[in-house]
Structures are given as C-alpha cells and as structure tokens.
C-alpha cells in the first residue's frame, strides 16, 4: 500500500503561509517581481478569470483584487526538503515525485491505514500547510484518493470505481490532448476506461496506454524511493567533564571507533570530519578536519583530529563532544602496479595538518613562472600529492647547474672602479671577477623598478648576485 501526501498548489501555499496577514484575499504567484508571469493561483483568482501563464498585468486585469506573491524556489525547495525529512519518521521509503507530492511505501509499517494517515498529519502538522493524505494500492490511485478526500483509504478492488468519476485533467494531460479527448466525448476517467485499449493507443501514442491503465485503476509507474543522505556521527554528553588533554583524546578515540564502525558497516569512508566541543562555559567550538582521502580507519581519524586540535586552548573543561563524518565516499582505492612507489596520501595529509597546527604554516609546493625579477620567478601553491609519474631514471633528470641561495635583501657598501664594482662589503673585499650589469626595468604600472644586476667573485671565494637600485647597492643571493 502506498500513502500519498499531496499539498494542492504547493508553491502558492508556501508563499501564503509566509504571509499570514493576507487572510482570504485571492492571490497569484508570479515567477518574478517585474514583468513576471503567473505560475500558480488560487481558486478565487481563477474564478475571477486569471490563468496560469498570463502576465501579472493580464491576470490583475481579470482579478484586480488579487494579491501578487513572488515565487521563491529556494525557499519552496527547502520547505519541501524539511517535509520529506519529517516523513522519514512515518516510513523509511519516500518517493519524492514533485514539490508538494510524495508517496510513502507502507508495507511492513505497523498499524492500520488510518493510523498511518494520523501519523502523517501529526508529522507534518508543524508546517502549517493544507496537507491531504490518502492511502491507495498504487501511486495514481492514492493520489486520486487524496484528491477526492483527505484521509481517504482506497483498496485495490475499489480503485476503478474511485477514479471513474474524476475528470481527465487529473492525468496531467496537455490542453490540446484534453480538447481532443473531449471532442471524442471523453471527459472522465470512467469514460476513458471504457474505450478499447488498442485503438486508443494507436490514435494517441504510447502514453495513452498509461492513461488507460490509470483510468482502469492500475498504475504501472514504479515507486522510486529517494536516496537518503547518510549521516554518521557519535557523541558523548553528560558523562563527566574533560579538563586534561589525555581525557579528551580518550573520548575522541572512543568516538572515532564508533564512527568508523558505522562507516565500515555501510562500506563507506569519510573525507571530512566535524569535531564539536561543548565547554562548561557554554562555548561551542567546531573544528573541521579534512582528510586527503576518504577513510574508515579510526587511527588515521584520531591522528588527524589530534593534529588539528594540538595547540588549541579551551576556556573551560569540555562537557560534550561530537564527531560527525561527512563527505562520505565509497571505500576502496584502485591498486597500482607499483604501489610501494606511490606516496602515502594519508601520511602526507596528516603531516600537513600537523605542520599547520604546530607552525601555523601550510606545507606548499612551488612552481616556476616567467618573470624578470628573481623574487617573482616562483610562486607557492598548496601541496597536492601528485598522482603517478614516479620511478623515472635519475640519470635522465639530474643536471648539475649552479644553484643560487637567496639571502635576506640588505644594503651593502660597494665601491665602483670604472663601470664595475671593485670593492664589496664592509670590511671591503676586492672583486676578482665581475659579470654584468644586466638592466632590469619593469613595473611601470605599479611602481617602477630599475636595477642593474651583477655577479661578483670576491677575493675570499664568495660568489654573489648583487644589484644596484638607484644609488644603493643590495645583495640578493649567493651561488652555492
């Protein structure tokens, strides 16, 4: 048996619910405030001549006392999502057909149909919307029962008689098809059911087979339960306070074990953890812990969480603790042929988290880029474990080239002789060899920089890159 939850004119009902001051005033729902079109309207506005699809101006010309509301699809979807979550308390299998229309599979649920209906009303009571609930053998029949009367229970044998007097509009046909059927004298489902199946399908196409079945009280549409967003968490409240680090880690270990046990049961791993700490002072702190790869290993989880909370100070003892697993993924990583060469992503993620916690510095990788100035020839970026590519020959890669070590830029004393530096530093040391100058001019748009750079070999064997900017000399690095 299926239970149908139907809210007629759902979007308008939600919009009206948010404006209780409107009372019984007829209302139109427009898709946008300016030059919008009517997407829904109530019976009184329809009675005044307004129709769906008209512009707001056209509709207001017909129903001039109607109040125009603007459709808020995000709000509407959020309310419906909350209602579906509430319906989970009635049955674990909920088919989300459309906003304002849901079906619940009630086989195996305790109680009789009337109890189910009462329970559903109770679950949705807080939403304050005109909910109609009915029970039927199939989706269409249950919906038709809800259309006929709130709380209607229809058995399989009554299905055909229940739907027979209903008008064909309930089949959600397009106006052109309705017109064609009416020209044939078919206005109700009973009349449609009496038509021979074959000629009807030949004339109206495959869809007509479904109309005919529904008109006969059968519905071939399958029940499609919505996918549940799995939530796995574990918490400790009311079991004393933790004012020492070890106590906190002990509690975290228990929670990590519980969470991982649940994760393993559903064959998933968590790529994100939320650890929430409630303190005696009322302070609630949530720490988001990202994992490089989804895991269901309690030790890894605990290590990463520990690394994240290292150095964090709480104002008062912790009284509550919650560990929530998020971004759940199917477990299992593809095995590589040379797995021993592949980096351990978990270990690296843990190291990065520890570095961030201990030093406040994120581990980075560097990339080179084209630029004239030394300091702009490279940039830091977040470290990501590169996939594959290891195991190349060293001989093919190693190229012995001079290396420059950057020194903190500082001013130095330089004595020129001719056009080249002769003495550098204090105490001055003679320049044995000098290369340069190489002029660098750039940044005219954001502060011009003009430099003359030199490589100098000093008498004591030091090999420096120095530069002159304006009248001042600076040291930039040493070849090493």
């Amino acid at each position: 048996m299926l239970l149908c939850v139907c809210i007629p004119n759902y979007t308008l009902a939600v919009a009206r619910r948010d404006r209780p001051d409107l009372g019984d005033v007829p209302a139109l729902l427009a898709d946008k405030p300016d030059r919008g079109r009517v997407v829904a309207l109530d019976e009184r506005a329809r009675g005044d001549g307004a129709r769906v699809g008209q512009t707001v101006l056209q509709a207001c010309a017909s129903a001039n006392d109607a109040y125009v509301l603007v459709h808020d699809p995000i709000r509407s979807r959020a309310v419906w999502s909350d209602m579906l979550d509430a319906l989970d308390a009635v049955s674990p299998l909920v088919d989300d057909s459309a906003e304002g229309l849901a079906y619940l599979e009630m086989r195996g649920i305790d109680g009789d149909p009337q109890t189910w209906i009462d329970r559903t009303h109770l679950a949705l009571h807080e939403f304050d919307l005109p909910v109609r609930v009915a029970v039927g053998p199939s989706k269409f029949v249950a919906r038709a029962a809800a259309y006929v009367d709130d709380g209607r229970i229809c058995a399989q044998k009554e299905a055909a008689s229940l739907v027979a007097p209903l008008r064909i509009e309930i089949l959600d046909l397009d106006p052109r098809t309705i017109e064609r059927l009416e020209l044939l004298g078919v206005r109700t489902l009973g009349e449609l059911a009496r038509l021979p199946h074959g000629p009807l399908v030949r004339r109206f196409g495959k869809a007509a087979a479904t109309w005919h079945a529904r008109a006969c009280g059968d519905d071939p549409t399958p029940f499609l339960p919505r996918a549940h967003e799995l939530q796995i968490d574990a918490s400790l409240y009311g079991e004393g306070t933790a004012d020492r680090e070890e106590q906190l880690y002990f509690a975290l270990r228990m929670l990590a074990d519980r969470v991982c046990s649940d994760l393993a049961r559903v064959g998933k791993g968590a790529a994100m953890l939320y650890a929430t700490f409630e303190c005696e002072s009322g302070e609630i702190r949530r720490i988001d812990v990202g994992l490089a790869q989804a895991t269901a290993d309690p030790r890894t989880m605990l290590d990463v969480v520990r690394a994240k909370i290292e150095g964090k100070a709480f104002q008062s003892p912790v009284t509550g603790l919650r560990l929530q697993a998020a971004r759940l993924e199917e477990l299992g990583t593809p095995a590589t042929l040379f797995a021993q060469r592949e980096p351990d992503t978990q270990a690296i993620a843990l190291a990065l988290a520890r570095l961030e916690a201990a030093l406040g510095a994120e581990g980075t990788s560097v990339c080179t880029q084209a630029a004239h100035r030394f300091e702009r020839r490279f940039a830091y970026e977040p470290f990501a474990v590169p996939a594959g590519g290891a195991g190349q020959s060293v001989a093919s890669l190693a190229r012995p080239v001079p290396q420059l070590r950057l020194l903190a830029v500082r001013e130095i004393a330089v004595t020129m002789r001719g056009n080249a530096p002769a003495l550098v530093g204090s105490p001055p040391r003679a320049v044995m060899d000098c290369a340069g100058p190489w002029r660098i001019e750039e940044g005219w748009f954001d502060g011009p920089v003009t430099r003359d750079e030199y490589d100098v070999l000093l008498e004591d064997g030091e090999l420096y890159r120095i530069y002159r900017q304006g009248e001042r000399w600076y040291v930039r690095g040493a070849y090493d």
Partner: protein
Amino acid sequence: MPVLLPAGPKREAFQALKAGLDLGSARRSVFAGDRLVPTGFDELDRALGGGFSRGAIGTLEGAGSSGRTAIMAGLLAGATARGLAASVDDGALYPPALAGAGVRLERLLVVPAQNAIGIARAADILLRSRAFEIVVMPEVQLQATVWSRLAGLAHKADTLLLTLGAQARTELAYFASVRLGCAIERVLWANESGPFCELGGYDICARVLKHRHAAPGASARIRVMTSNTGGFLRERAVGERHFFTTARTMAI
C-alpha cells in the same frame, strides 16, 4: 715480561700496518643499493660508497659559496624522480635553480620555518610521516637531545635527513652519519668581464669529513655548469679554502 722494542721499528711497523689497511676497500661496499641515496654525481657517489645512507643524518658543510646547494639539488632531483622529498625552508631556497637541476618541484614539499625550534619541529613532523625519501633542513643550533630524537626518527622512517650549514656543531657532528665538506675550487666565466660575461659554472671539491661506515678523507670533484654557456670559458682559481669556513663569510 713484555719486550720493549726501540721506537724506530715500532713506528715503522705501525706505518706498515696502516698502509695495509686499504681504506678504499672499506668505502666500496657499505650498504646495499636500496639503502643508499645517490647524489647524482658519479665521482661523489664513489667517494661516499654509493651515496648517502638512508635512515640517518647527513650534512653538507661549507661556506656561503661552496657548492652545498648544488649537491643538495642533485640529491633532490633523484629523490623527486623516485618519490617525494621535503625541504624546511628558511627563505634561502630558490626553486627555479632547483628546477634547472632536475628537481621535480611538484613532488617537493616546502615548509617555511624561521627559528631553530620551528625548523626542528617541521623536520620532526616530516620524518614522522615516513612519506619522504629526503628531508632537507638548514643546520641550526639544537640540543643534543633534539638531534638524537631526529636521528631516531630518521632511522625509523628510513629517511635521509640532510642538513645544510657552514660547519656542523658538536652535537650534530656526533649524530651525523655522513659529513661532507664542500668548497668551490674554480669559477668558470663565459667570455671576458662586462655585460657579455656571465657565470659559466664552478668546480666543487667535496671531501668526506665523516662516514660512519667508512674511513673519511675521500674526495670528489664536481663541475656544475649553466646550460647556456658558449664555447669560451675562462677559469678563475679560488684561493685555498678551508672546509670548516664559518658563517662569518656570509656577511658582506
């Protein structure tokens, strides 16, 4: 009753014994190949008995311009070709030059740290991860207990912890398995002086100052050159430089 020999024959006997030790043979077979991290320079690898040993602390020592970084770049190029490497950076790292030496920068984790404690903590965390073949750090003054801890972690992680500095202090010198002193012997210039002249490269002399599994004293000469040098190279010999040059030479 012991027989006292005269001083002359005793000294001669000792010299003969020393000559017969064949110190070179001790350097030839130290570890199996997979326990070594080759530097990428054949002559230096021979001097080291195949390379730096994994699971230990190695030092590269020398003055500001001594070629330490060029040897480090060779080690990193090999390590990043095989897996991952990490470097605790005190601001001296110049990645474009490392990339020029063949280091795959995307496989090099760079951790900025400024003070000695920060550098030690970063090295500690990187070693604990056991994910890197080499961890490079600047040589800083740390207590012997810290070096002992780092040496233990390097051993457990089977990682080479490489330090760069002017001269290893007593504590580090004790815990280091391999110490390599570096100095530039010759500087090569492409063309005569002036704007058309540029640094062509330099010759590095690397000497094994300490090797836990072999006798010290072996040396190797390495030539590093820029890729764009033309045909003419002018050599300038650098005066006799001591391998224990202190950090004062960095100040100009």
